């Protein structure tokens, strides 16, 4: 706790002077300083105006029924009830869960598998592979979406390849297919996340002392035991980071759906963020949209806290 500052007026004049000069010139680090408030002022101002106020307003909007133009009417919690009863809104959350599998679960498993397979290798040229594998993380999602739309085209590379190897029956307009549209969007998430997980895990593995593995092998541990006893526990921290980044990315998917499918065909690929946008600006249901945004925020919070809890417990 910071020591409270005595009101300046109660001090003797000379001590006031030394005190004030300490504030202006700066005492030791960690000494109580009122000038700190000046330093944080711009950040707090902009943060308050453009994060805190809108956040409170969002929560407030979610309790009203409003089409964005006319008068609004008090709705209580009915918007929140609609999120669970309207199939289309509930569907968006179900789709988000499916995307979590594609964005987070598959990349993490793939990353672990590969990292484990390479646990014994000291490879040269890792720097190059790191740069390439991490590349999907930095490309704008809109560009990613356009590239993958082209891959999924009826006459795009994917269908061409399938036809070339004689699997004509599998070729289809992927993004227009009721069954395959959502997995097709999900695969793009897998593509974005796998490199990140692999880079993270390989970096984590390189910090595990090689003696551990040698000792385990002397004790006759097989590859599977080696992985469970050494690799997995050592990677807890990296796992937490990988899961945090990928799960949040899955929950907040927007650009990809907006550009690739606009939620279609039908409502097969709608996600919470897309429904927030859709309800607020296309359907004129601002109350529903904001309620959805509030729930999405809570889900993101809970996911972040849970993942990092698990990660921290393992590190101790």
């Amino acid at each position, binding site marked *: 706790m910071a020591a409270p500052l005595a009101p300046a007026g109660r001090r003797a004049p000379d001590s006031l002077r030394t005190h004030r000069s300490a504030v202006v010139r700066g005492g030791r680090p960690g000494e109580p300083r009122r000038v700190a408030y000046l330093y944080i002022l711009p950040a707090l101002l902009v943060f308050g105006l453009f994060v805190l106020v809108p956040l409170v307003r969002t929560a407030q909007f979610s309790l009203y029924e409003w089409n964005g133009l006319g008068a609004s009417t008090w709705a209580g919690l009915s918007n929140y009830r609609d999120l669970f009863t309207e199939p289309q809104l509930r569907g968006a959350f179900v789709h988000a869960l499916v995307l979590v599998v594609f964005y987070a679960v598959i990349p993490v498993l793939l990353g672990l598998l590969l990292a484990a397979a390479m646990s*014994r290798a000291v*490879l040269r040229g890792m720097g190059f592979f790191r740069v390439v594998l991490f590349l999907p993380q930095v490309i704008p999602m809109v560009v990613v979406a356009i590239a993958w739309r082209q891959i999924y085209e009826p006459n795009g590379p994917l269908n061409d390849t399938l036809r070339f190897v004689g699997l004509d029956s599998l070729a289809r307009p992927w993004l227009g297919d009721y069954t395959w549209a959502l997995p097709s969007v999900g695969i793009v998430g897998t593509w974005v996340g796998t490199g990140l997980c692999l880079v993270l895990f390989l970096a984590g593995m390189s910090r595990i002392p090689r003696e551990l593995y040698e000792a385990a092998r002397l004790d006759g541990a097989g590859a599977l035991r080696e992985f469970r006893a050494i690799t997995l526990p050592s990677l807890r921290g990296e796992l937490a980071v990988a899961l945090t980044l990928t799960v949040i990315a899955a929950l907040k998917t927007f650009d990809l759906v907006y550009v690739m499918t606009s939620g279609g065909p039908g409502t097969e690929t709608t996600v919470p963020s897309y429904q927030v946008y859709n309800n607020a600006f296309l359907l004129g249901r601002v109350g529903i949209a904001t309620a959805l945004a509030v729930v999405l925020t809570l889900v993101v919070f809970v996911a972040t806290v849970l993942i990092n809890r698990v990660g921290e417990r393992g590190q101790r």
Partner: protein
Amino acid sequence: MISRGERLANYAMLALFAVIAVFPVLLILQTALSNDGIVSEGRASSLHFENFADAWDQGHFGSYLRTSVVVAILVVGLSTLFSVLAGYAFGTMRFRGSEVLFYVILLGIMVPAEALVIALYFDMRELGLTNTLVAIVMPQVAQSTAFGTFWMRAYFRGSSREVVEAARIDGAGHWTTLWRILVPMGRPALTTMIVLVFMWTWNEFLIPLIMATDESLRTAPLGLAFFQGQYTSGTALLAAGATLVALPVIVLYLFLQRHFIRGMVEGAVK
């Protein structure tokens, strides 16, 4: 220690994943340089670099990129300044309420833009501020400042007490200590933060989509998305536009990849 076969298998696996990672990028690049008969009228060369010029002019990507540059400069500049100032206070000074205030900002890092933009849009419309640079820039400044404050605080906390102490003995005040000593020493931490904020701003889609409807205020990813809506995919012009939009981030990434990877791995929860 490890057999040649195993080493080869490892390289093969890495190579396979590397190929998968670059394939969509190369596909776009190849399409961008191709002649699909829509824009170019049978010009002779096999690599059609003129597609980029056409995207720049006819596709208005020149204008979209200009908007993006302006937005990126403003967001990076303002949020860096605010983050350095706030991070300095949180990292080196003791004051009442510092813990509470810091945790509030930390929570702010986790708030998704979805929870802000709708309310912001309607409130700013009330003030006549939608369709302005302010509406696109300030929400992003706020979000980036939250992250930046967190990031810079960690740097200032870890900065050398002795150096600060020595500066003070030489008569430097807190302002001089910050700008003359700590900021120059903290170049690596600052670079990482700037690179991350630049990437997030450049790639941001939802905020400019909602806050600005004027074509003159369209950022590059937004312009690309609208352009895509008008043309079928796989056309050279669209691919050329996509290349132009991705190019600045990719070039920066190739030069500063350590900062990108380190930043995302160490502190990025965005």
